[in-house]
């Protein structure tokens, strides 16, 4: 165990995780409440020979990291709601062209400019469906700084393994709160580097011809293999195609490579779920208050449990159904009007058991807020 303990903001924990994972190119644009990530990386990346660039806008920073990923870099950008909206176009490009990249969204209140300095978790569904067209996506969250660090490393590992953009859906409370972070030693958490082609120079390399295991080995731009990358439907050469068979197979591939691995990609934490009569389901900073409620109720002998989801997308339907099977009441705790609650209702048997405990006024949801909702559900009044 490392003795390197730091007292940091969540945004700093994210930066530390990214550097641990091998980040060497970051492009960003200033936006509250994620700006500290860009500020810190402008200072830290060049110390390691990495590159930081502040682009002219959010769109450009998303585009720039895709360009840098193609030359072989591990790349990231960071933003918040309005910037996340602007990044959706190029995020879809990264899905289509299968470019590994990590997008941090430190959520604030929306819609529109909303409330920049206050917490919300309103981008859950935008993370899933923000860019146009059918696609699959991976989105991870965290409720404390140790997990911010770990999930950031995970995000890079998943992005590089499956050649996909991965969204880190943090929130203003986690981003700005300070708490201790134990920095793992090098090697303590496994780091995944992308699979590179073993095809030799002079032999045809097909950038979009999957191996038997479904993976697509990459070749860095500037290397010996010259190929085309496009956001259009494309064949195994990366060349645009409008053949129905090519379109169908590529879309299926893009969906299946993520959704067929839903259980494999499901990261979560659980507290007293085995015998929970009342199961709270939460994620991000709101899971902290949910945890507090569960601990207090347990002390009073009440069978409360918490399922904290760290992978939000692809939504772990099987996991949620299993963990919720024995619960009489399921309460989803989140700071929006019920975005993840919808998915929980779809996942569980007898969805009439599912209730929402939320807060949407920019104020962090407290254990007392959750308890009030619980009293209402239990018919005890407020």
């Amino acid at each position: 165990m490392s003795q390197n303990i730091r007292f940091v903001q969540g945004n700093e924990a994210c930066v530390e995780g990214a550097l641990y994972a091998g980040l060497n190119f970051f492009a960003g644009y200033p936006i509250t409440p994620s700006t500290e990530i860009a500020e810190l990386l402008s200072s830290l990346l060049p110390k390691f020979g990495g590159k930081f660039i502040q682009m002219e806008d959010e769109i450009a920073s998303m585009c720039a990291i895709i360009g840098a990923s193609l030359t072989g870099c591990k790349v990231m950008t960071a933003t918040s709601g309005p910037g996340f909206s602007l990044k959706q176009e190029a995020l879809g490009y990264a899905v289509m062209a299968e470019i590994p990249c990590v997008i941090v969204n430190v959520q604030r209140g929306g819609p529109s400019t909303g409330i920049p300095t206050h917490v919300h978790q309103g981008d859950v569904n935008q993370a899933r469906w923000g860019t146009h067209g059918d696609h699959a996506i991976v989105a991870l969250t965290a409720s404390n700084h140790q997990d911010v660090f770990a999930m950031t490393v995970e995000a890079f590992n998943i992005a590089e393994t499956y050649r996909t953009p991965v969204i880190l859906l943090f929130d203003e409370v986690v981003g700005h709160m300070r708490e201790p972070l134990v920095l793992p030693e090098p090697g303590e958490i496994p780091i995944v580097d992308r699979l590179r082609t073993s095809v030799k120079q002079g032999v045809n390399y097909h950038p979009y011809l999957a191996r038997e295991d479904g993976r697509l080995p990459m070749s860095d731009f500037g290397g010996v293999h010259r190929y085309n990358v496009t956001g259009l439907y494309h064949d195994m050469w990366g060349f645009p195609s409008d053949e129905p068979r090519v379109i169908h197979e590529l879309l299926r591939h893009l969906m299946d490579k993520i959704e067929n691995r839903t259980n494999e990609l499901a990261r979560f934490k659980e507290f007293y779920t085995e015998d929970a009569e009342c199961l709270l389901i939460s994620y991000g900073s709101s899971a902290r208050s949910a945890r507090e409620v569960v601990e207090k109720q347990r002390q009073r002998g009440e069978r409360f449990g918490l399922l904290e989801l760290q992978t939000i997308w692809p939504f772990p339907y099987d996991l949620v159904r299993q963990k919720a099977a024995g619960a009489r009441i399921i309460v989803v705790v989140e700071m929006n009007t019920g975005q993840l609650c919808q998915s929980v209702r779809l996942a569980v048997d007898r969805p009439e058991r599912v209730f929402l405990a939320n807060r949407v006024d920019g104020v962090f949801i407290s254990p007392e807020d959750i308890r009030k909702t619980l009293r209402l559900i239990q018919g005890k009044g407020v």
Partner: protein
Amino acid sequence: MAVKDYIRERFFPHIWCAGCGHGIILNGLIRAIDKLQIPKSDIVMVSGIGCSARIAGYLDFHTLHTLHGRALAFATGVKLSRPELNVIVPMGDGDALAIGGNHFIHAARRNINITAIVMNNRIYGMTGGQFSPLSGYGTLASTAPYTNVDQTFDVVALAAAAGATFVARSTAYHVQQVTEILQEAILHNGFSVVEIMSQCPTYFGRKNRQGDAVDMLKTMQKITTPIGSKAKEQNPELIERGVFVRRELPEYCAAYDNVIQRAKEGK
């Protein structure tokens, strides 16, 4: 090498209409690269969306066909992460200066060593002939049936004002000059902008009664003149061709290398 060694024959025939100027520019570009003898694996070509953008796919370089207007933003990521690569960005007029206008001026301001080519046919061809920021006042387009009331940009003046350190203009008619200018642009250490007037007989030519491709090429000969020529003095309406700006400013990637040096030394 032969011209055909630079193209991906597998993907031909190309999608451009008969008479389109973009093929001439493709030819001029290949000859420029051939004269410079840059290895194909040292070139990354990044393009956006539109007729012009398809040029990348036909060439045997590392090619990145991106989003409408965003080519320079992607190219900036490529270049900054691997400064030793030659990055060439062919764009259309709408691509570069309407939806991509912000990326265009900021890439110029940064003076990053990228060669930006604006293949200016004054129209959105792929979507069927809508006016672009370079169509000009009084032209006809499928979205300007009563004539266009949008004023135009002067690409050269815009690029120079935005900070590009090499700015030039030529036309598809003057393909020898295109080749020479592109060579110099690619060698230039900084952000270079080359506007190449191109003909779209299918839309711009037809809607504006400019005749066929040959007529349009002849028009380019007539309405342009070398920079500082006598003809320009006599007829200020003429459009000048040649290199307008050659200047030295710190190149972005080199400047960032200094940042890395200072960061490592803790200064």
